[in-house]
């Protein structure tokens, strides 16, 4: 039976290990945004042993490229992008201390294995609910790669940001479980 958790970032090993595919989690605290272009640069820095623009330990990475904010708003609409484009980078991020990713859509076997091996989870947020999710973001600041525009790395602060556990630390996959239940 699915459980509901309220967690604050950065996430600890204990925070993450208790979660199971299908659980609902409301996240508060800091998330870092990154899409493919930013991931490529971050992983290059890790491989060269150079310092990253933010601390990976316990971090939650949100795969998003928001719309520009309207005057007075911290950010525009900000729902998840499709995650498979980050599959080749995510294991390295998890290996170096990141604890969770937020996106939408399937991950490959390497990412699922990395979640088991390094103790990380993959959360799904509702794709196409950009207006609703954008309102859960209380502040936003570009911390790296401003030239990437919507793909820049942002430090965003969220309050009760709703996500569902897709892949947990035991190798479960909600997409496979959910579909198997309703397939005719």
């Amino acid at each position, binding site marked *: 039976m699915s459980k509901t958790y309220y967690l604050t970032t950065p996430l600890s090993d204990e925070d993450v290990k208790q979660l199971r595919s299908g659980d609902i989690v409301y996240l508060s605290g800091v998330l870092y945004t990154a899409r493919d272009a930013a991931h490529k640069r971050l992983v290059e820095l890790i491989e060269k042993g150079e310092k990253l623009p933010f601390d990976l330990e316990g971090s939650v990475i949100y795969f998003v490229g928001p719309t*520009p904010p309207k005057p007075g708003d911290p950010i525009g609409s900000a729902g998840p992008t499709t995650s498979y484009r980050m599959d080749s980078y995510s294991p390295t991020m998890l290996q170096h201390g990141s604890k969770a990713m937020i996106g939408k859509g399937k991950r490959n076997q390497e990412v699922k294995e990395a979640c088991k091996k390094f103790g990380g989870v993959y959360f799904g947020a509702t794709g*196409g609910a*950009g207006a609703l999710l954008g309102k859960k973001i209380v502040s936003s600041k570009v911390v790296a790669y401003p030239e990437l525009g919507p793909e820049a790395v942002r430090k965003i602060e969220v309050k009760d940001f709703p996500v*569902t556990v897709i892949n947990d630390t035991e190798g479960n996959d909600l*997409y496979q479980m959910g579909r198997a239940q309703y397939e005719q």
Partner: protein
Amino acid sequence: MREIAFDTVVKAVRDIIMHSGTDLPKDAYEALQKAYEQEKSPVSKEVLKQLLDNADIAKDEQRPLCQDTGLAVFFVKVGEEVKVTGGLLKDAINKGTELGYQDGYLRASTCEPFSRANLKDTVGYNLPAIIHFDLVAGDKIEIEYAAKGGGSENVSRARVFPPAAGKEGVIEYVKEVISDAGPNPCPPLTVGVGIGGTFEKAAISSKHALFREIGSVNEDAEMAELETTIKDELNKLGIGAMGMGGTQTVLAVHIEANPCHIASLPVSVNVQCHSSRHTHITL
């Protein structure tokens, strides 16, 4: 020859783009409501609830429905007895696109294919638009518009079958495309299927099929029946809203069929996410 001013076209295009970014059309909203009522999975039902809430927030607060505000795609029917004065029709549509995306705080998502450099400061903000022109009788310009997101476009496919594949081949192919796509294109989906024509005609028809009103019935009885058959098959896949598992994977299947070569049966499947932002105007 009737005349329409360049700026009239620019303003009309700007306005429909801004409106489409924030206001989910009635047909799409009602289709989501119906899916919400019929969905058997509690997890998918919750997702559908979020999508309806999201549409309400977007409309009330004039925020983009989704951060992927798409590439701007147009099907334009130009009457042979009308002309645009003060500039080219194509330029007017592109200018209206740029203004609509900028003024609506929508995202600029066009880029170079390999360097991935965003084109907003070089070619223009979310330019170029994708425009398909057709010449028709009369003195009107009919503009159909949709904002097409990347996630659903990425799972779309086309293939030219041998004629022997027949209807069964088409049904199996569409099932394969949607099954492989799973959660990635943001279901519940509208599925555009272009059948016949040539390779590119099938693809363009599958795109245009997505502009049709969700819930409308195909005028061709044979295609209407095939649409129902495919929709039922797709909803048996169990993918559900955002792939969480469920009974409501597809809101509608729309087919556009064309005559084709005696040697070929082209089929194209263009996938539309639940945020079906489409509209049309006549000038």
